[in-house]
């Protein structure tokens, strides 16, 4: 047997989306030895798919905008379940993080006076999203990628981390991974580890997420002793494609609505006017006329109801479809064709034009799009310290979609891209501080061989179950029972079925060899997919209210008491895939008075 590949680093970063790359830049600029590990090629992470923009209160379009307004919008969008300090840091630091991208070569769309252009998005009081047409994520990822290359960071591509390694005292020691092209295992010892592994959407049937979103970081953190929170809060984006079936779930950017698109039911009615919740009534237009005036001048009218936060819009679409006013394929209509010129649509939304033309044969400059909710983003994740992104495991940090707190129970569009930059940087800084304070670390060989054996088991097992069959059943289950609207008995049932799926994973077998074998790769993803699904179902069962990304049919209202509580999940009876996960309510940090006043002022 050849010797296993092994590397020693100060900081390893797992995940090369916006958050991971930003963390790597920070640690590398400090002069530390840094590795960036990704299970795809560099530049293909989910971040590349982000469309609409990155929210930052730069005030380039509306000079009234500032961090306080952004902070307030973010907290209200998250139904006040956010970690206030994270939301504050995010609102304060986002503009600098965007300007910094310009110093690294990004080319954002411009205003007439040559500043970075900003667009309107749901839940943001002012036009706030820095963007490049509808391919902002591509700009962000390419800029960061080019920065990573210029700093000469060591990048491990198509290298999947399976487990974190820990020291006897519980602190983090490194990670075990395998190279997807060869199937060879590789270990990393590291003084500090940053998790930036993105989301969990692949456990649902209809999702905007790619195969990578299997919640590996969430699960690995839990198995290493970290805590998760808000795992029940999952954002169903209101506008995913619904037809043809094979593209169902693929995202249609909110930019369509920001740029004038409206939602209509089968009767042609702009139904969102019927669904304005009290919390948003004062700032939402009452008539179509008023809403239409707003697009050109935000002081001439109030916001159109199509731009309410995503949870509100997704639930409304769901209700329209249930009431029998949906489109032929079970969605509703998103219409920009009748409202903007073909030239405008093609210039502002080129990739949407492209996507519908090529995948659905629909010309969005002439016809409305058929859309419906799709599983998009998880607000929940690793419970972290606001300033440092540190988890409760010494040396382990988390940023981006893998972390929780910033978005509360519902994320506003555009707040993720800026979140990645703000907290990616902070995680990189804190991990570097920690690494600098540590002497060298060594890894525990017994852990390593256990984890490798576990990962290889599906290849050695004969006549077990096909991993795709388990994935299929998991996706059907989560879609049906832990979807956009939840209720007690279905959640209980989901948890029972998840236990069964957990058992079935023990008997999964993969055919073929270790080299670039998607079936085997999936088999090694299933434990994390099931773990995060259990967390989501458990959280949803415990949170007996409706708030943001958690909607309970049996508890349709928000409960003010539960609004002060995080449901925190951890493994108290030994960490690991097969061990139980406990849930406990823990009080949310209270906002200081000087911030509280922002919510009392009129409007």
């Amino acid at each position, binding site marked *: 047997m050849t010797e296993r590949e092994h590397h020693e680093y100060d900081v390893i970063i797992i995940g090369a989306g916006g958050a991971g790359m930003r963390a790597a830049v920070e640690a590398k600029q400090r002069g530390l030895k840094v590795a960036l590990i990704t299970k795809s090629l560099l530049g293909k992470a989910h971040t590349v798919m982000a469309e609409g923009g990155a929210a930052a209160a730069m005030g380039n379009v509306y000079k009234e905008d500032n961090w306080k307004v952004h902070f307030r919008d973010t907290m209200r969008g998250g139904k006040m379940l956010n970690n206030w300090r994270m939301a504050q840091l995010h609102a304060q630091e986002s503009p600098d993080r965007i*300007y910094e991208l310009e110093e690294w070569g990004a080319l954002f769309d411009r205003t007439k006076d040559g500043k970075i252009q900003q667009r309107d998005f749901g839940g943001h009081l002012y036009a706030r999203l820095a963007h490049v047409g509808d391919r902002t994520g591509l700009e962000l990822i390419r800029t960061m990628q080019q920065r990573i290359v210029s700093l000469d960071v060591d990048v491990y591509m198509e290298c999947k981390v399976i487990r974190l390694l820990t020291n006897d005292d519980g602190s983090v020691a490194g990670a075990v991974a395998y190279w997807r092209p060869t199937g060879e295992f590789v270990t990393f010892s590291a003084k500090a580890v940053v998790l930036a592994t993105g989301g969990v959407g692949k456990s649902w049937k209809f999702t905007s997420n790619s195969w990578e979103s299997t919640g590996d970081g969430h699960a690995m953190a839990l198995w290493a002793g970290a805590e998760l929170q808000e795992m029940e809060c999952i954002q169903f984006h209101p506008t995913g494609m619904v037809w043809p079936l094979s593209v169902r779930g693929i995202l249609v950017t909110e930019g369509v609505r920001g740029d004038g698109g409206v939602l209509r039911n089968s009767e042609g009615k702009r139904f969102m006017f019927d669904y304005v919740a009290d919390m948003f009534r004062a700032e939402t237009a009452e008539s179509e006329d008023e809403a239409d005036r707003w697009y050109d001048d935000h002081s001439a009218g109030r916001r159109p109801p199509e731009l309410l936060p995503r949870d509100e819009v997704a639930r409304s679409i769901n209700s329209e479809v249930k009431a029998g006013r949906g489109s032929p394929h079970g969605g509703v209509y998103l219409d920009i064709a009748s409202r903007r010129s073909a030239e405008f649509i093609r210039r502002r939304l080129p990739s949407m034009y492209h996507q519908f033309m090529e995948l659905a044969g629909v010309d969005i400059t002439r016809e409305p799009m058929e859309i419906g909710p799709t599983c998009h983003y998880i607000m929940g994740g690793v419970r972290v310290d606001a300033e440092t992104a540190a988890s409760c495991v010494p040396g382990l940090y988390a940023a981006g979609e893998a972390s929780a707190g910033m978005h509360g129970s519902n994320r506003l569009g555009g707040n993720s891209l800026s979140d990645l930059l703000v907290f990616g940087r902070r995680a990189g800084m804190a991990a570097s501080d920690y690494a600098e304070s540590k002497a060298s670390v060594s890894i525990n060989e017994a852990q390593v061989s256990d984890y490798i054996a576990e990962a290889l088991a599906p290849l050695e097992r004969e006549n077990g179950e096909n991993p795709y069959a388990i994935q299929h059943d998991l996706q059907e289950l989560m879609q049906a029972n832990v979807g956009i609207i939840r209720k007690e008995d279905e959640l209980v049932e989901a948890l029972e079925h998840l236990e069964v799926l957990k058992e079935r994973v023990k008997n999964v077998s993969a055919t073929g060899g270790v080299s670039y074998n998607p079936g085997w790769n999936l088999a090694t993803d299933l434990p994390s997919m099931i773990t995060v699904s259990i967390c989501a179902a458990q959280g949803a069962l415990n949170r007996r209210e409706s708030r943001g990304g958690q909607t309970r049919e049996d508890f349709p209202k928000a409960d003010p008491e539960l609004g002060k509580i995080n449901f925190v999940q951890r493994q108290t009876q030994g960490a690991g895939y097969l061990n139980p996960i406990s849930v406990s309510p823990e009080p949310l940090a209270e906002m200081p008075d000087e911030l509280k006043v922002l919510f009392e002022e009129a409007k």
Partner: protein
Amino acid sequence: MSDITMRVWRGDQNGGAFENYVMPKVEGEVILDVIHRIQATTAPDLAVRWNCKAGKCGSCSAEINGKPRLLCMTRVDQLPEGEPVTVTPMRTFPVIRDLATDVSFNFEMARKVPAFNPIPKPEEGYRMQQIDVERGQEFRKCIECFMCQDVCHVIRDHEENKPKYAGPRFFIRYAELEMHPLDTNDRRELVREKMGLGMCNITKCCTEVCPEHIKITDNAIIPLKERVVDADFDPVAWLGRKILRRTKRTSEEAAVQPD
């Protein structure tokens, strides 16, 4: 609906062969969907790259009936009815397994590009006009599918040219930096001497396959060739021209400039 016959190349560096899969047709599907159904049913170990399934990440490049295509953007109903669909890995890059190729050549070429180096940031931040950023934005639409690299005859069957040829994907990168309103690095000599710009004979095959419809030849390679052969090779004059170009544009917009 009828069936579709997929002839998929399966193998690795040591060789391989076509395998036929007959799958029922499903309305609206793209080739990647059919491949995923093959994986889920008969061949779970069939190697293919993909991420976004919406033409945005450039992972799923392969050759369909001999032409570079994104598997996720090629609809089954656009291919000739009733004929088998042949899917092979990109030919220019070494195969890893089945449809996945080793594209590290491109990442090596990316490392050779001298980094972006902007002019110092003015107090009030950088100002750029839309018209000035648009040229670079066209090139920054690139999703790094590497299909232009795959189709380019300079390296398609000429392994020996690879070390001295950046290829169309990186010619647009050099062009983008050359046209970037803030950049100060002069890469013209490098592109001419070491990156093989002269070996491109403007066949436009790269432009034809680009899924982002970037006019690689007309908007990047030809202007780059012009600038590189520019008789006046004085770097100071070059920089002067770059900056002049910028200020000229800016003064045109003086009416809307607050400062």
